[in-house]
């Protein structure tokens, strides 16, 4: 396997990382996602990393890159399911996941995305719940 499937759900793209990624797979995912956001004009990207046993500076950088590139194309990125031990380790390592939101699970991540971009296009005008 050298590609991770990207699922489209309406305005969102969903990626579930099921194994610890080889670097090649991670960089492929980065470019595939950017292309997919561009092609589908997605407004949100949700990445489920609950199966990742560690996030080192390399993987952290990939996630950050995805977040900032997606942002340029007007899409928000949320990383969900980070294991507590991974979160603790990231903080001590000193890595900030810049440019991405985080949520506990896929459901909460979806809520967050809907909240950020507005469920329906017309809702974006009076979006009071935006979590800034």
């Amino acid at each position, binding site marked *: 396997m050298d590609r991770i499937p990207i699922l489209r759900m309406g305005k969102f793209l969903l990626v579930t990382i099921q194994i*610890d990624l080889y670097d090649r797979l991670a960089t492929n995912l980065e470019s595939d996602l950017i292309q997919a956001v561009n092609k589908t004009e997605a407004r949100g990207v949700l990445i489920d990393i609950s199966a990742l046993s560690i996030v080192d500076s390399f993987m952290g950088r990939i996630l950050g890159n995805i977040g900032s590139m997606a942002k340029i194309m007007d899409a928000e990125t949320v990383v969900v399911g980070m294991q507590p031990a991974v979160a603790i380790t990231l903080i001590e*390592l000193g890595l900030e996941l810049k440019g991405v939101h985080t949520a506990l699970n896929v459901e909460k991540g979806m809520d967050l995305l809907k909240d950020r971009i507005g469920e329906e296009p017309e809702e974006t005008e009076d979006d009071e719940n935006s979590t800034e």
Partner: protein
Amino acid sequence: MKIEKEQDVIPFRNRVKEYAVKIGMSLVNQTKLITAASELVRNMLKYAGGGTALIEVVSDNRNSGIRLLFEDRGPGIKDVDLAMKDGYSTGKSLGLGLPGARRLVNEFDIKSKPGEGTIVSILKWKNG
């Protein structure tokens, strides 16, 4: 274990994990150790074109832990104190690897000679 290419990183991490599980290391400590190990093998690959990594179980009468030794014959590091600083990188990167790895383990020792190579040794106790 020889570390020569990017594909060696995950098998190596898995190996460390096996040892950590075997001695009953807590999950948080396992994660910290493996993350530190990942940073150090990456440095070996990126800056020294590879090297060797050694896994060792250590114990004194109170505690047991895992020591990892990373040895390469790359270009070495001219100013180790500088390389240990957060944000210092000659690879246009974040410069987090070395200082971050030090924060994640109980003991961290680095020796490097320009032109000869670099040896990094880390130790993580099972508890604490």
